[in-house]
């Protein structure tokens, strides 16, 4: 399952974080800073997978923004026989692809997405993310499906918008 999704800029500031597995705040902060440091220290030529404290971290850089997805092997209750430690993760390439779709969807949603869009419409991005991932599992990867419901929800939200109600 996906344990967390982070969007971090090149200065190491977290722009968005979403956790699908409960961690306490100190842990989150420590994890973020360490993962980001690791991601930042890697060059373009290196592969986009990291193994860190039991997480398999998959990241991708778009312009100045890192999209980081942490997946975790579900604890295996079976006695480990022949299966290696590598199984049971989400498919790494699949996650890379997912990041790309996420970015494409956001791109279509905001016209041309940039860091500021995420900063100032944080909750919207969260909603969008919620449409794509729920509880650590990908629900939908169809751009128009996602955007349609986002759009509908948006309209629904604005319908009875008004100062006095």
């Amino acid at each position, binding site marked *: 399952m996906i344990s967390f999704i982070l969007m971090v800029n090149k200065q190491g500031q*977290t722009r968005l*974080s979403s956790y*699908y*597995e*409960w*961690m*306490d*705040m*100190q*842990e*989150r*902060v*420590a994890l*973020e800073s360490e993962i980001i440091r690791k991601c930042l220290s*890697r*060059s373009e*030529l*290196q*592969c*986009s*997978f990291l*193994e860190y*404290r039991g997480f398999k971290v998959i990241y991708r850089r778009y312009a100045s923004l890192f999209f980081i997805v942490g997946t975790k092997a*579900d*604890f*295996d*209750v*079976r006695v480990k026989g*022949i*299966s*290696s430690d*590598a*199984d*049971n993760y989400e*498919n*790494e*390439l*699949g996650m890379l692809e997912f990041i790309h779709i996420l970015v494409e969807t956001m791109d279509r949603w905001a016209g041309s997405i940039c860091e500021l869009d995420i900063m100032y419409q944080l*909750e919207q991005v*969260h*909603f969008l993310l*919620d449409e794509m991932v*729920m*509880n650590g*599992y*990908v*629900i*939908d*990867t*169809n751009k128009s*499906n996602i955007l349609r*419901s986002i759009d*509908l*929800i948006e309209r*629904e*939200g604005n*319908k*009875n*918008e008004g100062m006095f*109600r």
Partner: protein
Amino acid sequence: MMGYTMSWAAFAAVEVMSSPRFALKRVGYLAACQGLDQPENSPVVLLTTNLLQKELRGANVVDTTTGKGGENIYHAGLAINCLSNIATEDLGQALLPELLHMLNHPSPYIRKKALLCLYKVFLKYPQGLRLSYEKIKLCLEDPHPSVVSCAVNVITELAEKNPKNYLPLAPAFFKLLTSSANNWMLIKVVKLLGSLVPEEPRLARKLIDPLSGMVKSTHAKSLLYESVHAITLCLPYVKKADGSQPANIPDVVELCVETLRSFVSDSDQNLKYLGLVGFGSLLLSQPRVLHSHPECRGLILTCLSDEDVTIRTRALGLLKFMATKRNLVDLISQLLSHVEAASGEYRCQLVEEIIRMCSSNKYELVMDFSWYVDVLVILAGVRGIENQGEMIAKQWMDVAWRVLPVRCYAVRRSLEILICRGPGGADEALVGGAKDGDRHFVPEVLPAAAWIVGEYSQLIPDGVDEEGLNTTFDASSKGPYHALMQALTAPTDAAGVNPLPCPTQAVFVQNAMKVFSAACQRNVETQNSHGMSLEKLVCSDEELHACAETLMKNLVIYAESTDPEVKERAFTSYQLLLSIGLLPSSNSFATAASTASTCRDAAATLTYLLTPEPMKPISAKAQKRLAAEGPPSPVSVRDWEKGVDWDVFWFAKEETPWFDKDGNVKGSVENISFTKHLSNSTSGEVKAEAMGTAEPIPAMQPFGDVTSAAAEQVPFGNISNATAGVNIGQAPSTSHHRVGDPFYLNSTPSPTNALFSSKGAGMDGGPGDATNTATTRFGVLTLDSGGESEEDSGRKQKKKKKKAKKNQRMGVAIADSDDEDDDHVSRTKRGSTGKGDRAKEYANLALVDLTTPLGEDDVMPRNEHYVVPNRPPVRADEGHQKQKKKKKDKEKKKSSRKEKHPTTAAVTGDLLGFDAVGFSAPAPLPAAPAPTLVSSINSAFDDLLGLEMPPSVEAPTLIQHSEANEAKAGKAAKKASKKAKKKTKQ
């Protein structure tokens, strides 16, 4: 969010969640998902139950004609999303029916969300899985692909926990595998089938073909990788019943290797990484694959020099499959060159991997052990691998005592390591441009080297004899023995600043003595065997004198150590040297010749005392025989004594309190008390000597040392009956026990003392063991203290145990609260507890058995309000007593069980309320329905809760639904009322 906790705003978030305005509500839900405290700990989660329920129900109210209420599905979507993030057991139980209902919702949007949410609910509330499995299965045939995909997702995850349950689904997935074109889903399906294979080996053969077909046909690299991975999972199981492999297996393996090779050789680093991971899992089932594909070996080796650490680590993991007897040397030398260049964590991994490769299967691959010793020495000189030091040291000792031919060489290398710590060694190394340029050694290696030199000190001449060995510790060194002595007795490290760790010092002292005895021996041998050509190294009088002097001088320093072990060993050794007639170093009268002769005279004694029988490998057969015989019976000291060669104690021939003139012991060795310092020198001698005999294998057997060390610290008065240092009639084992016990007092233990110590142990944060051992120790003491106080002590013990438990708990609590401050500790600790929780959840989920059909007691929890039907009749006179009894039982149960089911509790309360009303007219129908109804409902719930069946159930008429019961009860009530009317008419 953004690194700040917002648990303080939890209530506000819930408030906003219930706002009528959608825009606000959304934000509220978002806040709840992101920022709530851990759901189990958060009290506000309870508050959300009703709200979520309302939202979920709202989604079903869609007016199809007007289309009104369509927006409700988004409300529900929000609610589901939120639920999946904050699910707890109670929430799951309460909302499961609603969620299941949503699976039939017309909108796929809701269906897929509800499906995924169910997984989370099952994690928290595993019993729910049994109840809803059928519906999940139906979702696999959903017309909407994204719903099917979600269903696959959920079942994949569930199957990871307990694959057995999902075997019946295999055909359905097989169909999906061959028919679907959705790569996202195919990946999951492949994963799922892979996890089913270990449960059903026949599946493996079936899968191989379509999977390899997929490998050939697909363009998506992710799917390609997943398929190859699944094939590697299948491979171990493809064997047919008769043990033969299907014919196509070699082709399939070839295909896998080819694909993975193309991955590894790809310029894309991601694929390279995945290729290496894939090889890793392939090699587990086909370890010989790389031997037949030399080109892959080359590829993997190039990955070792990749700039990416992740890739290097993965490649490193593959190396152990590539090593053979022939290429090991090459491989290791390559790795060693990498060690130089590597840094940090990776360097440690490299070192570990090198050692693991060489030592695998009892050094199966190592052909030349002197080469391996060289490798170890090089590794020992690497900086920054402190954690691996112990591993290296162990290996080194292991090799030295297992492999006889290499011992001499190991001794030589040990000498090198030890001697080059000195200032003279440094100069030499610099001038001569010696190979170990920076001469840094992992500290753990030093004791190992010292031990080897001491243990095999007879081999020193052979080692030194070879060319090129630097044998000067500093300018004053007289020869190799002296240099070694200087090295071993220098209490500081090479720089002369930091003291060595105490355990190392202790080993050094002991081995310095061994080397000294060897040096003496060497001289004796020279004398005895004149002109023998095998004599290689002679220890001259000057050298021996210098050795003795260095030893005497430095042992005094060691004897002042604060570490009891070092102190004791040094003190014993010093006394031993005094007793054989060596003079303290300050004494300038001793000449080289006289000292040397003294030493030579004592050589036999020293060797006897200090050099144990060499350890020998025992053949596997002999070991098995020993194991069959069981543990050896404890050898009593008296038996052992028979083997003692008393002649070596020649210097104790004068009569002493313990030896008569012939050197025979008056009492026995065990009677000598180690605890009293006697002022006259003879007793000192005897004491030292007794210590010597008490530890036949000094370096290897810490027991004797520890006890004597402890004895040193125990105040004199505390040892009972220590008259003149002789303790007649006390079994050595008990005295050892007592002496070894730091808490030992000769009277009954004072409770305050006990309290203090156990408390201390509890507070230390090492909760369990420390306290327990403390108590048991006191247990021993109280038993010793005599019969009359036994009961008393027993009670005390109990109390203490209780206290210890309490303290233990306190200790844990304290440790927890301390964690708040300590960032790192808390992180690791919490991480582990979190994992534990998860693991528990998974384990619970795995326990759910789906193969058996739903029993009658598997009923969906209902949350409907119970409407009391017409009063069922109860026969007052007959049923009264029974009911009272039952009522009592029920109440007991109610109080014991937490109010988990308010509705059921209400039901029982209501139903039991009738007897207060009281029916005067005896109803002709048996009054059974009401109580049985209650008990059947109860039993259903009890089972759900995993409780036992209530013992008081009479005639368990199992009725599935409470509605049926209600109907029955209603009927009965009607009949009863009719009869009552009749009676009144009459």
